[in-house]
C-alpha cells in the first residue's frame, strides 16, 4: 500500500517508535540468548558473577575449549547468511517444489531438512575447516572465547535425550492431529448452529478452559495406574494400563486443549460466509459433504494457526506429561525438569540448560516457517470475542 502524505510520520515519532521496538527486541531475546550462552560454558563460568566471565568463559578456555577471532567472524557470517536464506529463499523453494495440496507437509519437510543441513554445516563442516585454518594462523587462531559443546554431547548422547525428543514428537504430533480433527468438526458445527445449546456448550467450554489443571491431573493418576483392574470387566484380560501410555496422554492433552481449539476454530468458520456451504447444500450436498468440498479447501489459514497453538501446548506441557508418563515414554520438558530435582549438581544444571536450549530450537524453526501463516491466519479474521 502507498502511504499518503497525510499519513506520513514525524521524525520524532518514527525515532521513538523505533527505539521502543529495539528495546523490546532486546528484552524479548536477552533471557533466551543468555541461557544459550550459558549452555556452552563450563559450570564454573556458566554461574559466574560477572557477565564478562559468562560470555568469555575463562575457565572453559582454560580447559582448552574455545573459539578464535577467525572462528567467530566466519561463524557469524555463515549464521547471518543462513538466517537470511531461511527468510528469503526457503519459502520460495518450498512453494516451487511442493505439490500445492501438501503445503503443510512441504513446509515441515523443508524446515527439518534445513535444520539438519544447518547443524551439519555449522557443527560438522565449519569446525573442521576452521580447525585447519586456526592451526595455520598461529596467534590469531588462538582461542579468545571459551566455548564447549560438552553439555550437548552429554545430553544427547550419554543421557539419550533423543528418546525424549522422539517421545515429544509423538505426543505433539498426536495432539495436533487429533485436536484439529475433532476441533474442526466441532468448530464448524458450533459456528453454523445458532441454537442455545451451541451457545451453552461454548460457555461450558470456556469454564472448562478456566479450570486449574493441577486439579484435573491429580485426579487422573490413580485411575490411570489402576485402569487395567478397572477396565478388566469390560475388556477382559487385555485391558490396558493407561499410565505411561503416550496415547492416553495425547487424549488428555487433546481434551484439555479442546475448549480453546473449538473457540478459535468457531471464529474462523464464522468468518467463512455461510452462503458458501448453503449454496453447496442447495446443490444437494449433505452437511458433511458441504464441509468437505466447500469448507475444507478454505479453512487452512485458520487451522494452521490453531494447530500452532495446539503444538505449543503439547510440546510445552509439563504437568500432565510429568505425572502420567513413565521414564521410557517421558517427553522433553519433564525430562529437563528432572535435572532440577532435589539432588542435582551444577553440571546437571548446565546440562539442563543445554537441553532447554535444544528443545527451543524446533520452536524457532516452527515460528520461522509459519510466521507468515500465523499473521495471515489471524488476519483472515480469526479471533472475535
Amino acid at each position, binding site marked *: 500500500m502507498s502511504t*499518503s502524505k497525510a*499519513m506520513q510520520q514525524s521524525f520524532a515519532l*518514527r525515532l521513538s*517508535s*523505533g527505539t*521502543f*521496538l529495539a528495546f*523490546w*527486541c532486546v*528484552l*524479548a*531475546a536477552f*533471557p*533466551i540468548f543468555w541461557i544459550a550462552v*550459558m549452555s556452552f560454558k563450563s559450570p564454573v563460568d556458566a554461574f559466574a*558473577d*560477572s557477565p564478562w566471565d559468562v560470555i568469555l568463559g575463562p575457565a572453559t578456555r582454560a580447559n582448552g575449549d574455545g573459539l578464535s577471532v577467525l572462528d567467530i567472524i566466519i561463524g557469524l557470517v555463515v549464521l547471518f547468511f543462513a538466517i537470511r536464506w531461511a*527468510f528469503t529463499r526457503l519459502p520460495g523453494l518450498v512453494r516451487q517444489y511442493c505439490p500445492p495440496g501438501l503445503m503443510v507437509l512441504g513446509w515441515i519437510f523443508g524446515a527439518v531438512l534445513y535444520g539438519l543441513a544447518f547443524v551439519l554445516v555449522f557443527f560438522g563442516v565449519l569446525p573442521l575447516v576452521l580447525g585447519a585454518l586456526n592451526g595455520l594462523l598461529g596467534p590469531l587462531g588462538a582461542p579468545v572465547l571459551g566455548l564447549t559443546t560438552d553439555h550437548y554431547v552429554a545430553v544427547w548422547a550419554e543421557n539419550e535425550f533423543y528418546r525424549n525428543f522422539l517421545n515429544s514428537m509423538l505426543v505433539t504430533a498426536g495432539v495436533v492431529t487429533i485436536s484439529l480433527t*475433532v476441533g474442526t468438526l*466441532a468448530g*464448524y*458445527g458450533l459456528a453454523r448452529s*445458532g*441454537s442455545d*445449546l451451541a451457545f451453552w456448550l*461454548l*460457555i461450558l467450554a*470456556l*469454564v*472448562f*478452559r*478456566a*479450570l*486449574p*489443571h*493441577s*486439579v*484435573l491431573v491429580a*485426579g487422573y493418576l490413580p485411575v490411570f495406574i489402576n485402569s487395567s483392574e478397572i477396565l478388566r470387566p469390560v475388556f477382559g484380560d487385555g485391558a490396558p494400563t493407561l499410565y505411561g501410555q503416550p496415547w492416553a496422554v495425547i*487424549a488428555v492433552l*487433546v*481434551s484439555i486443549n479442546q475448549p480453546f481449539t473449538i473457540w478459535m476454530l468457531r471464529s474462523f468458520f464464522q468468518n467463512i460466509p455461510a452462503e458458501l456451504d448453503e449454496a453447496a447444500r442447495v446443490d444437494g450436498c449433505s452437511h*458433511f459433504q458441504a464441509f468437505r468440498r466447500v469448507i475444507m479447501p478454505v479453512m487452512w489459514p485458520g487451522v494452521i494457526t490453531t494447530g500452532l497453538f495446539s503444538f505449543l501446548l503439547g510440546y*510445552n506441557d*509439563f504437568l500432565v506429561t510429568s505425572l502420567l508418563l513413565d521414564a521410557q515414554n517421558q517427553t522433553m*520438558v519433564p525430562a*529437563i525438569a528432572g535435572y*532440577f530435582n532435589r539432588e542435582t549438581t551444577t553440571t546437571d544444571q548446565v546440562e539442563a540448560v543445554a537441553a*532447554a536450549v535444544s*528443545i*527451543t530450537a524446533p520452536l524457532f524453526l516452527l*515460528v520461522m516457517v509459519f*510466521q507468515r501463516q500465523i*499473521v*495471515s*491466519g*489471524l*488476519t483472515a479474521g*480469526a479471533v472475535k*470475542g
Partner: protein
Amino acid sequence: MKFKTFAAFVGPSVFMMLLFIAAPLVSVFIQSFQVTQPILEQVEVETCTPGFLTQTCTTEIKTVPVLDDNGKTVTETRWVGLQSYRNVLQMDKFWAAVGNGSWNDIMQIDFWKALRFTLSFTLLTLPLVIGVGLAIALAVNNATRSIRGPVIFISLLPFIITPVIGSLSIYWLFVGDGILTAMLERWTGTNISMFAQAWTIELLMYFYRVWHVAPFAFVIFYAGLQTVNMDTLESAVIDGASRWERLRHVIVPHLMPLIIFIALIHLMDCYRVFEEIVGFRSQAHVISLQWLTYDFMTPDDAGNRAISRASASAMLTMIGIVFLLILPLRRTWRDHKGSAH
C-alpha cells in the same frame, strides 16, 4: 442445522471434554463435601534402622491403617458438608482479623493470601499485557517492511518458549548475584536481593508474565491492524484528527473485539497462575490459588494428601473464575442473541 447433524459434528469433542474434564470435575465437586479416611489402629512396632556401623532399634506405638483380607487399606468415607470449605477459608480467623482491622492477620491465612495475590496478579498484568502488546503492534506496523519479519520472529520468542524454561531463565538472571542484579547493584550502589522480600519477587513475576504473554497480544493486535479500514483512517485525517485521536476513535474501536478476546484469555490464564510460583520459588512470600490446591494435592513423605481441602479450594477457585468471567460473558450472550435473530 438439525440437531442430529449438530450432534455428529460436536460429538467427539464434547465426549472428550466430558470424559476428561467434566467427569473429574464432578468427582472433585463431590469430594469437596466428603472426607475419606483409612481406619486406623494403634499398634506397637519395633523398627530397626541402620546407623553407620550398628543398627538402632526402637519400639514405639504407631498409628497405622487397618488392612482387610485382600491386603487393601480399609477406608471410610463420610459426608462432612462444608467442613473442608471452612478449613480452607478459615472464616473465624478471617472475621477476627477483620474485627481487629489487621490486614497482616488476614494475610496469614493461606487462602486469603493466595486470593490477594491471584487477584492483584490478574488485574495488574491485564492492562500491562494489552498496553504493551498494542504498543509493540503499533511500532511494528510503523516499521519498515523489510525488518518486520525478523522483528515479529524475535517478538514471538518469549511466547513460544517453554514456560518452565522461560521462568528459570529469568530467575537465574536475578537470583543471588545473578548478572542483572549485579548490574543493578553497580548502577544504584546498594546491595540488592531480589528474592529476599515479597514485593521484589512479585514485581519479577509481573514482569515475567507480561514478557511471556505480551507477544500473544501483539500478534493478534498486529493481525487486527492489517484489517483497519484505510478509508476511515484517511477521512479521519482529512477531518483533522490528531494521531492520538485517530488511535482512540478509529483503531482502538476496530480492535475492541480483539482486546476483549485477549482480556478473556488473559483473565483465565492469570487466574490459575502457577508456574511463576514454582519457577521463582516464591512460596515463602506469595502463593496463588492454584498453587494452594496443588500443595494440598502433593503427597508428603508419608503419602498423605489433603484431597478434601484440595477439592474445596479447587471449587472456590472455580467460583472465582465464574465471577471474573460474568462481565465478558454477558457481552457474548448479547451477541449470540443478536445473531440468532
